[in-house]
């Protein structure tokens, strides 16, 4: 008798395990479909104090290039609403965030010129890239990577920060997620402090020679060696006072001049966008909290009337209606954000000189013009 009962229990336990496994198998695609990503579960950075250097020698200061962030908008448009992504806002954020990181890096007094770049510049002494994984009023998740000119990776990390009620309204010049930017700045500085002056000097020299090689591989390619891991080393250096190098430096300065003009536009965009963006995040957070709270209350709310009666169905419908109206208010706000900020973004993209296209394509066009000038001046074949 007991044996039978036990066997039956085993049988049902087995069935329960199998059923659970099956449910998990069924649930996995659903989770994937919702775009839920375990990578987004990174621990928030918490309160971070920015490490500020004093008396850093100019020789120890590297120039930093911050490339406009990747907005992290999924190609599959059906995921946008599921993930709460408003593409136009994301694109604006991708230009806004590097400017904020730039400000924080400058506050550390540890770096040379920090520029926001429309596109990757491999010859940057230190190049920082970022990708927005999540950005809303409650949470910011950024993937940040950094490489120096020798190809050595300094950073490849996902940062998360959460905002609380105290972070809003954001004061001028600050940000609800300022701790995240401070953490990135501290991590970059920690890495830099591990390098001695000679190593920093090598990074600067490699950066210059990589730039020179990008102008003319034939003339400057042999100064550098690249190992299978992609790390560059200097084989030799041009002689002091080499006239060709003087031209290279002049062309590079021209490029920097262009980047500085572009950079100025990103800063303008940041300043113009900041108040609206801050309100958008604050409202977004309030809406999300209200929605969560409402959903929780609705699920535990006492039912009116018997299931199937008009009063019970009306309650179900009105609960749903309420949440939909909230959701649509948020959509309308996103539209309001676009109405206010999009013209500025567009203006920022079309202002530089008489080049056409986006800042990124203008930058590439400018670089190719500089290369052509270099080829004309030196008579050397252009780098492929």
């Amino acid at each position: 008798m007991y044996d039978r009962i036990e066997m039956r229990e085993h049988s049902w336990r087995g069935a329960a395990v199998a059923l659970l496994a099956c449910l998990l198998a069924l649930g996995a695609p659903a989770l994937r479909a919702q775009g839920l990503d375990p990578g987004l579960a990174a621990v928030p950075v918490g309160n971070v104090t920015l490490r500020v250097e004093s008396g850093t020698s100019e020789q120890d200061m590297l120039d930093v290039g911050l490339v406009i962030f990747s907005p992290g908008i999924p190609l599959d448009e059906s995921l946008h609403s599921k993930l709460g992504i408003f593409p136009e806002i994301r694109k604006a954020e991708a230009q806004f965030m590097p400017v904020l990181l730039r400000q924080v890096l400058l506050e550390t007094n540890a770096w040379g010129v920090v520029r926001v770049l429309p596109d990757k510049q491999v010859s940057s002494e230190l190049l920082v890239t970022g990708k927005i994984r999540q950005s809303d009023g409650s949470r910011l998740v950024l993937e940040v990577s950094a490489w120096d000119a020798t190809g050595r990776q300094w950073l490849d990390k996902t940062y998360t920060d959460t905002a609380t009620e105290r972070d809003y309204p954001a004061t001028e010049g600050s940000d609800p997620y300022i701790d995240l930017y401070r953490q990135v700045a501290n991590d970059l500085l920690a890495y830099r402090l591990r390098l001695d002056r000679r190593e920093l000097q090598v990074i600067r020299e490699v950066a210059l020679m990589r730039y020179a090689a990008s102008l003319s591989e034939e003339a400057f390619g042999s100064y550098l060696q690249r190992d299978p891991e992609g790390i560059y080393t200097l084989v030799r250096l041009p002689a002091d006072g080499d006239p060709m190098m003087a031209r290279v430096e002049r062309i590079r300065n021209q490029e920097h001049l262009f980047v500085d003009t572009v950079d100025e536009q990103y800063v303008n965009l940041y300043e113009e966008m900041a108040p609206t963006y801050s309100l958008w995040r604050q409202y977004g957070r309030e809406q999300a909290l209200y929605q969560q709270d409402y959903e929780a209350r609705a699920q535990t709310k006492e039912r009116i009337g018997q299931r199937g009666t008009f009063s019970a169905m009306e309650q179900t419908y009105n609960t749903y209606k309420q949440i939909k109206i909230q959701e649509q208010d948020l959509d309308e706000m996103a539209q309001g954000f676009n109405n206010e900020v999009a013209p500025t973004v567009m203006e920022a993209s079309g202002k530089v000189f008489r080049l056409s296209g986006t800042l990124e394509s203008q930058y590439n066009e400018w670089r190719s013009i500089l290369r052509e000038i270099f080829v004309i001046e030196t008579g050397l074949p252009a780098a492929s």
Partner: protein
Amino acid sequence: MISARQQYLIPFLLCSLCLFLAGCSSQPEQQRRPVVNQTDAAVDFTGFWELDYSQSDNIQVNLNALVRGLRQPRSQPGGVYQQAGGTMVIGGPGSTNSGASIIGLAQMADLITQSQLLEIEQDKHKIKVKREEDFALTCEFYPGQYHTIETPLGKEICGWDRHQLIFKNLLPEGLTIQHVMSLGPDGQRLNIATTVTSDRVTSPFTVNRVYVRYQPTDDGYSCKMTISRGRVCTTESK
């Protein structure tokens, strides 16, 4: 008594059933979906619409038809029967088809379809049906798939079925609402067939509402939403 063989057979059968169901719920869905690419469908509902009562269904008439249908025991598993005194008596499996449930279904249909004015915005990728005194029905179009949104308070599925646009809301407590939008041949009439289904009534309840185009009065100014300044209006008309 369960034999040792059965002990392993039950989990196996359950798992097979689940895998079968999983198969049913994912891939074949793609195949049986009668969804077409919106660019091919090219049905444009854009515009302002007002309810035309004369062409729309009368709820009372539809309710009578539902009750008549439920009275036929052969056609429905649960019927409605009349007692000697004339009161409606529960019929059907469990607690289905009570008078309150049947009338509740009709009242729900009336509540859901009460919007008299609609404003529809549509482009290649999405549609927004703004309904007076109700939330807007929205849908994003993706070739070959329905747009689905799931929340703890309900699930939405929408997409094209040839020239018709279907919105389906699966709400808690067995309540399902479906709106099927179709445009008349001249493009001047919009029919929305709203079907309300409850797990307490064995037949769904459908109401057809017909809308006709109207031209909203031009106020001589246009407004747009902004974040920092709220709604901003200019005298530049639309």
